[in-house]
């Protein structure tokens, strides 16, 4: 019975059905399900499914956005319970678009997917200078910093940030980069820890990096 509800909630989030997502979340909670279990067994798989389909060009930006919104609806119910119980996500990621760059659609998708994978995500926004990445990583004890750039002209800013983070002694913080013009080769050249071509792969990479 409850197993079905988990599956229904996963489906609702995947399809972006907000009302249904909220309703089923409440049903599970009322039945005594632990809030974290709802996150891990229903919501995370939903976002992961959508991300996988996105990666394989089966769904596109709109489907990602509406699924993320449905997840948010469910999390609005669950988050206060998690907070009250002192349950925090295992990993924290700081993510932003580098200095000089104002594009954020891709960055937002990556942030959504990381949230969907139950990372604590600190989104520092667009046009972010190195100091701000460093300060946010320190303040939040982040394990991961994600940099996004959409302009070939702002790609060099990624190197500046990588260098600045290393110079600031944040050697244990993993740096992941992405954006349309970015390549693995570029990531290697600037000493970033990893590159990912899309938002779903970004989650896989994030897991790999924080576990390393």
């Amino acid at each position, binding site marked *: 019975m409850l197993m079905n509800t988990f599956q229904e909630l996963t489906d609702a989030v995947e399809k972006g059905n907000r009302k249904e997502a909220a309703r089923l979340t409440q049903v599970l909670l009322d039945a005594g399900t632990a809030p974290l279990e709802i996150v891990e067994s229903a919501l995370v798989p939903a976002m992961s499914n959508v991300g996988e389909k996105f990666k394989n*060009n089966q769904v*596109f930006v709109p489907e990602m956005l*509406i699924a993320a919104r449905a997840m948010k609806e469910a999390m609005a119910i669950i988050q206060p319970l998690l907070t009250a119980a002192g349950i925090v996500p295992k990993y924290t990621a700081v993510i932003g678009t580098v*200095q*000089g760059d104002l594009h954020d659609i891709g960055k937002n998708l990556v942030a959504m997917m990381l949230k969907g994978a139950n990372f604590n995500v600190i989104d520092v926004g667009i046009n972010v200078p190195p100091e701000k990445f460093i300060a946010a990583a320190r303040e939040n004890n982040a394990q991961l910093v994600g940099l996004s750039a959409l302009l070939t002209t702002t790609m*060099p800013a990624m190197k500046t940030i990588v260098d600045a983070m290393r110079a600031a002694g944040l050697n244990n913080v993993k740096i992941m980069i992405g954006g349309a013009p970015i390549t693995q080769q570029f990531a290697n050249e600037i000493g970033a820890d990893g590159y990912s071509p899309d938002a779903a792969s970004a989650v896989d990479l994030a897991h790999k990096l924080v576990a390393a």
Partner: protein
Amino acid sequence: MNDLLSALAARPLLCDGAMGTQLLANGLHAGECGMLWNTEYPEIVSGVHEAYRRAGCNLVTTNTFEGSSFALARHGLDGRMAELNRAGAQNARQIAGDSGWVLGDIGPFGDFLEPLGDMTAEQLHTIYCAQAQALLEGGADALLVETMSDPAEVEVAVAAAKESGSLPIVTTYAFQKNGDTEFRTMMGTSVEEAMGRAIAAGAHIVGANCGTGLSFADYLELARQMVRLAGKTPVILQPNAGSPQMVGEKTVYCATPEEMAALVPALLQAGVRIIGGCCGTSPAHLAAMSCRL
């Protein structure tokens, strides 16, 4: 309006190439609003237009891609929307002369329409009308609604362009590769839907610019599909100069002018009527392409 369309019926035309990278080469810093240069350094912007004209381009595109008040607000410049668009059109008009056409550039507003985002179609219509108006006041001959992903946004922009004056309206989408011979925009829109909805909305010339991860072979295949789907409507294509590569501290586009020029005969044969360039193209690319037109 029939001027451009009838010229096009007689012969294929060459549109210009990238503006942003040219301004950067002239000292614009990444992150600064290139549109500000329409009033601050109009001689540099005009210089780029002039270089493209000298390369043989029949159409020059105004430096106003980010010119909707919504996109300009990211730079805190929404208050100067009309002035910056008008100046952009004037810079191009002055160089295009009587034998060239000025395309007033309208780019994506930068967020999503309802229900995905907060913007309503009516709000966006007002925003695009204001930009279109300013571009026409500055002397644009036609409006170019470009780098689009969402056909709903195209419909709003084309309606606004129409309302602002009876000029030809050009509409281009940015496609990504979705399979061997399948292309879609980031919103998942197929070539068929993209062309169909632009034409139904009233665009007079339709096509594609930019794109993600497209090889020259992909551009050619895309061109064939667009020509087939556009029917009688003329097709425009503005490919990137390959994909960007990092060389030392600098990013460079890999396709040489000769490589891009080699694509021209095939595109013409496929039925494309306006050819131009997008990211990474320079006057040198367009000059080489001009020789093959």
